[in-house]
């Protein structure tokens, strides 16, 4: 945009300074508002005795003015669903939806952990062993590879049905939702799988989930913004017929979109089971809904074609802040659900209101 002429071919007067804000700005404002609300509640609620959520003015814990521990847990607790949300974001941008990601996490965790078990626990044979001897103490690459391959397979099935039989993504992935739940329960007939090797346990220990989330978010951001893949994803979501008529191979592209989403979900399962040192069939329940909600709060449009990875990351942060904030102000669990629902609605209302103002401007 160095040369102002490159912006257009003339016509109407155009006032660059009044350009609409990026949508992400609205999400960011919502995030700040929510943080400030919790800070204010910490000051105002009598039983909180003037505590602060994100700041630590006494600096007694680790010598910084920020309450680093809380900031870490805020990001940590949304990292895993956040990774799923990255994949879901591109699915939604492509005009689809993925309901299968939650159960996929459960199924992938069970499978992955079966290949990541250690032989000896407290000197005895692993009591939760799924396979025989050969599957103990495998190099960490094996479970990761198995997980990604499983994710790729599920995504490929999802995508192929959606692309080639043209059934609605909602139905294809709802079917896969049930299938993955079935697989997860069938794998060990409901028994949890535990006791990973040390190297497997290292993948998701401590702040590693945050690192993975950050890396993958940057990668997806670059892909969606600067590559042909990203552009075609937006184009298909915006107008599938137009994309097809313009000569994009819509079917092949959709398969790829769902494969990437499922591989991200499977990788989230690797981190999740590593973090928890166990895999359980019920893992990942409601993750699909939360991942979708993060994306939508971040400004991704469910009709496709609009949204961004930056928005989804901000949407994930909103979730993290809400969850930690509730514990901070000691809100009863009954009211937590009600408040969470209200905040989700409120955040999107704000976004919508600002967007309308922007176009009405």
């Amino acid at each position: 945009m160095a040369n102002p002429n490159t912006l257009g071919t003339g016509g109407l007067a155009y006032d660059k300074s009044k350009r609409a804000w990026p949508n992400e700005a609205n999400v960011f404002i919502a995030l700040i508002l929510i943080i400030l609300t919790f800070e204010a509640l910490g000051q105002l609620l009598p039983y909180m005795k003037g505590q602060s959520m994100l700041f630590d003015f006494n600096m007694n814990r680790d010598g910084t003015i920020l309450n680093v521990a809380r900031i870490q847990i805020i990001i940590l607790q949304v990292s895993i669903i956040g990774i799923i949300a990255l994949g879901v974001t591109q699915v939604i941008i492509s005009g689809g939806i993925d309901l299968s990601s939650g159960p996929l996490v459960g199924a992938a965790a069970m499978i992955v952990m079966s290949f990541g078990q250690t032989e000896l626990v407290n000197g005895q044979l692993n009591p939760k062993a799924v396979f025989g001897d050969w599957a103990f103490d495998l190099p960490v690459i094996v479970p990761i590879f198995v997980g990604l391959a499983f994710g790729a397979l599920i995504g490929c099935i999802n995508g192929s049905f959606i692309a080639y039989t043209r059934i609605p993504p909602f139905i294809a992935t709802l079917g896969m939702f049930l299938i993955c739940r079935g697989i997860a329960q069938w794998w060990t007939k409901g028994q949890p799988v535990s006791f990973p090797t040390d190297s497997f346990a290292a993948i998701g220990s401590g702040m590693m989930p945050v690192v993975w989330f950050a890396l993958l978010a940057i990668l997806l951001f670059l892909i969606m913004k600067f590559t042909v893949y990203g552009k075609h994803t937006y184009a298909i979501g915006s107008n599938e017929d137009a994309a097809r008529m313009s000569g994009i191979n819509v079917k092949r592209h959709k398969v790829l979109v769902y494969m990437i989403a499922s591989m991200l979900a499977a990788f989230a399962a690797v981190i999740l089971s590593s973090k928890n040192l166990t895999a359980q069939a019920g893992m990942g329940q409601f993750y699909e809904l939360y991942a979708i909600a993060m994306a939508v709060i971040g400004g991704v449009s469910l009709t496709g074609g609009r949204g961004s990875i930056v928005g989804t990351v901000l949407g994930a942060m909103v979730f993290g802040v809400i969850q930690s904030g509730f514990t901070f102000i000691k809100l009863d669990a009954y009211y937590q659900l009600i408040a969470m629902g209200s905040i989700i609605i409120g955040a999107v209302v704000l976004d919508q209101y600002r967007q309308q103002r922007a176009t009405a401007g």
Partner: protein
Amino acid sequence: MGDQFILETRDLTKHYGGVHALEGANFQLRAGEHVAIMGDNGAGKSTFVRQITGVEQRTRGDIIFDGKPVHFSGPLDAREEGIETVFQTLALADDLDVPDNLFLGREITKWNFLGPFRLLDYRAMREATIEGLERTAVKIPNIRNAIRNMSGGQRQCVAIARTATFHSKLTIMDEPTAALGVQETAQVENIVRTLKEAGEPLILVSHNMRQVFDLVDRVVVFRRGRICANLDIKNERISGEDVVAYITGAKTQEGYEDAA
């Protein structure tokens, strides 16, 4: 038939459920020839275009393009064979901006070894876009606005610029100037003349009698899903009224009696 046909259809037919939108169309286009298709609303002109470009699968009939029978499974196939089309519905992605739409499906890229993840060359596309738009004379204050926010004529010009920017073996335009202003129409007609000079063949669907007489060599008239006339307007003495008579059914050309 000693001529070299770039496109030929034989008995091309399309039924939608009970609607016989296109019935036994035999059509020929010679190399370098510009042909107009005219006809009432709903006569089957766009249906004909959709069959040729692989947007829909025909009910029966043959299409011979560039000497070979073809069965395009989608518009991508047709484009790869060298058919560029401005569809009546324009086929633009509403949420993308002008350069994105212009280069949709054939972006200018860098680092092509990355396959589907190769990088977009935004700057090159932006510059090429401005150039392409200037040929249509359309005025767009900010090409980075989403197509959703463009006026009817601006959208149409983007679709035309897209076709005109790339070389092809055959260009098809379905009512390209319907929404255009006086100046823009003149420019698009210039683009068509340039194609003629370059020897590139063209099929033009249009309702505009003046435009058709100005631009093309031959007029094919559709009526009720059938071809009812094939008029060599450059060499025979044919007036606008004659064409209208064929369109309305007041007249039917010899050899096309079954279309009556």
